[in-house]
């Protein structure tokens, strides 16, 4: 048990960081929407799922059928990230317009909004399994529930080693790409006018409205940004695993939300910390107890952390820590 943990320590660290980076990117969507609306956007996992399918489509559309070299791979991933980001961001905006805005306008309770989110999540999963996958991706009629492979486009190569740490190209791209996106988002929220509006709304929606913030625009921007981050995460995920399915977002979404809560929900940097911590602990846990206990480790850590730090590692708020 302990030996396998020691043997696996460095590979687990690398895997944990790249997995955690994906969690962190998806967690941003949860944390931003939560910061502004106080809503668990349960359908965010399906926004991620849409991104993975957009990436599959983009790989096919670009006509890539064999693995490309490392430099070309970076270019392909950038294209995939843009396509998936637009698809996911657009889907997130549609979701807000169709499923959440009517409730907001009626001043519905957060519970009703959460339920609407669960409904949207179920509907999107089924819509993909029943309609989109069989028609758009040309899979057999009954095959909507089966995994969909993308063309094999990424050929992970061993890049370099730092001491005992072997770094593989795909994991490095994931980590660096996710970090870049997060810095960009952080700066966007900190420096631009729209970002200021987002922070103001998160702090105090009523006062923000009084100060002339167009709240609907802010909410749309929040969903678009969070969705786009999930799309980028989806592109990176597809490079690593090259396989997706209609339920791909479910567990990943729960983990990402866990990461957001772990770091302190509503806190952008908290999403990064939470994602990386969760990814690492999951990998260490699975080398220690065996891979089948991975998810149990993740949730147990969540319960333990919240018992001692009830607002997460960095504390909550999109506003206070960073305003």
């Amino acid at each position, binding site marked *: 048990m302990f030996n396998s943990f020691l043997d696996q320590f460095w590979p687990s660290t690398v895997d944990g960081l790249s997995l955690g980076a994906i969690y962190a990117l998806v967690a941003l969507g949860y944390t931003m929407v*939560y910061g502004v*609306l*106080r*809503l*668990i956007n349960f359908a965010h996992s399906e926004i991620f799922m849409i991104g993975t399918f957009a990436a599959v489509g983009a790989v096919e559309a670009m006509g890539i059928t064999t693995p490309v070299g490392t430099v070309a791979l970076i270019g392909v991933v950038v294209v995939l990230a843009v396509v998936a980001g637009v698809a996911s961001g657009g889907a997130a905006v549609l979701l807000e317009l*169709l*499923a959440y805005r009517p*409730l*907001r*306008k*009626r*001043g*519905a*309770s*957060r*519970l*009703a*909004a*959460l*339920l*609407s989110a*669960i*409904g*949207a*999540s*179920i*509907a999107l*999963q*089924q*819509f993909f*399994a*029943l309609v989109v996958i069989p028609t758009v991706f040309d899979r057999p009629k009954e095959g909507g529930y089966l995994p969909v492979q993308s063309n094999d486009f990424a050929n992970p190569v061993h890049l370099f080693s730092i001491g005992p740490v072997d770094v593989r190209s795909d994991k490095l791209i994931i980590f660096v790409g996710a970090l870049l996106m997060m810095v960009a988002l952080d700066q966007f929220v900190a420096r631009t006018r729209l970002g200021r509006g987002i922070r103001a*709304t998160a702090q*105090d*929606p*009523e006062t923000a409205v009084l100060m002339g913030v167009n*709240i609907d625009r*802010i*909410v749309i921007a929040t969903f678009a940004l969070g969705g786009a981050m999930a799309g980028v995460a989806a592109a990176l995920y597809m490079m690593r695993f090259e396989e997706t399915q209609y339920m791909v977002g*479910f567990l990943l979404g*729960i983990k990402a*939300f*866990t990461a957001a*809560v772990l770091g302190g*929900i*509503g806190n952008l940097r908290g999403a990064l910390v939470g994602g990386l911590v969760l990814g690492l602990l999951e990998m260490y846990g699975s080398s220690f107890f065996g891979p*089948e*206990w991975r*998810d*149990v480790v*993740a*949730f*147990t850590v*969540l*319960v333990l952390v*919240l*018992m001692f730090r*009830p*607002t997460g590692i960095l504390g*909550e708020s999109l506003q206070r820590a960073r305003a």
Partner: protein
Amino acid sequence: MSGARADKGGSVSWLTRARAALRGVREWWDSASGPVRWSVYLLLIVGAVLLPADAVGNVMSPDSNWADLLFFPIGGYILLAIGLNVVVGQAGLLDLGYVAFFAIGGYTMAILGEKVGWSFWEILPVGIVVAALSGVILGAPTLRLRGDYLAIVTLGFGEIIRITARNTPAIGGPNGISGIPHPPTLTDWSIPDVEPFTSLGLGGLAPFEYGVLDARPYYYLMLAAIIVAIVFVVRLNRSRVGRAWAAIREDEDAAELMGVPTFKFKLAAFAIGAAIGGSAGVLYGAQVTSLNPAHFEFMVSALILAAVVLGGAGNLPGVILGAFIVAWLPERFRELKDYRMLFFGLALVLMMALRPEGLLPSRRRKAELEEGTGGMGGLGAGVAGPDGDPHEVKAEVAG
């Protein structure tokens, strides 16, 4: 154009009329005297007993066995929704992992019945106590958390229970446990095969003999459990405990300041909800004879929560109606086969947009909604009430 407009007008007046009828029923009920109320209860119970009749089944589920459906999912969901309503509707705690208690009840039945050889009647109280204890164990460290933190922790707990069951070979791992014994027969007395029972399809039925094929005796068992649970929950809600829950739901800090031991009452809500969920699990395990972790997916938690909110959290008739709809609709429209979950999801979105307070909202909750906070707080960028700080749920750290 004008036709469409007239149509819309028609549907609006239909809605208003339905609302007026509902209000009328409520007013009549409020002014009804004791004997009148008791006769209504009696009529409802007689109706529920006659529910498995063939004539009803032909309308409600022409394609599948109506008695099976009545036991589970319909009866099971109703019992689970009553239990979850204590937690979500009455105490205002968001539990996304309620299925865990259902699983604990089911596995208690399976392990003690199949491996230890106890009978159903011995296991039932044990299963309820085990589930309630696990509610306390989960609640004690987590109930100091608020709102959404509690939601995600309970969700995690539900997953932990399921995955642990899957990974533990001693309780069958992913294959689960089969060969769970049926409850022993109470009496082999059967309904005489004479009119009117024959034409109802109930003639010759032995309602207390628990066999393999006929689900109707199990349905009656479930019905009894539901009635007991309803009486228990209603009595509780009218007691000091129920008032404490309402106070916690509406404003936890104010309740604490007024001397309500909030933590204790939240824990009680969790334990009682868990106990009811556990009893549903024991009953379910006793009928299906084989259980595996796939029966206890997160989707069950989501559906039960949907039932509670759809019907009107906090209002028992609403919750029962909601559970019935959630359980029955997808089964009734089996001809849509795969598409039923798609439509179910869309219906959920639509229902929440049209009637966010639920089909039969509790009056108290409705008043809260009109204040804009809706008990669990309004949406942040929504319409905040006069005194409603939309962030009130998270503004302070529990402690």
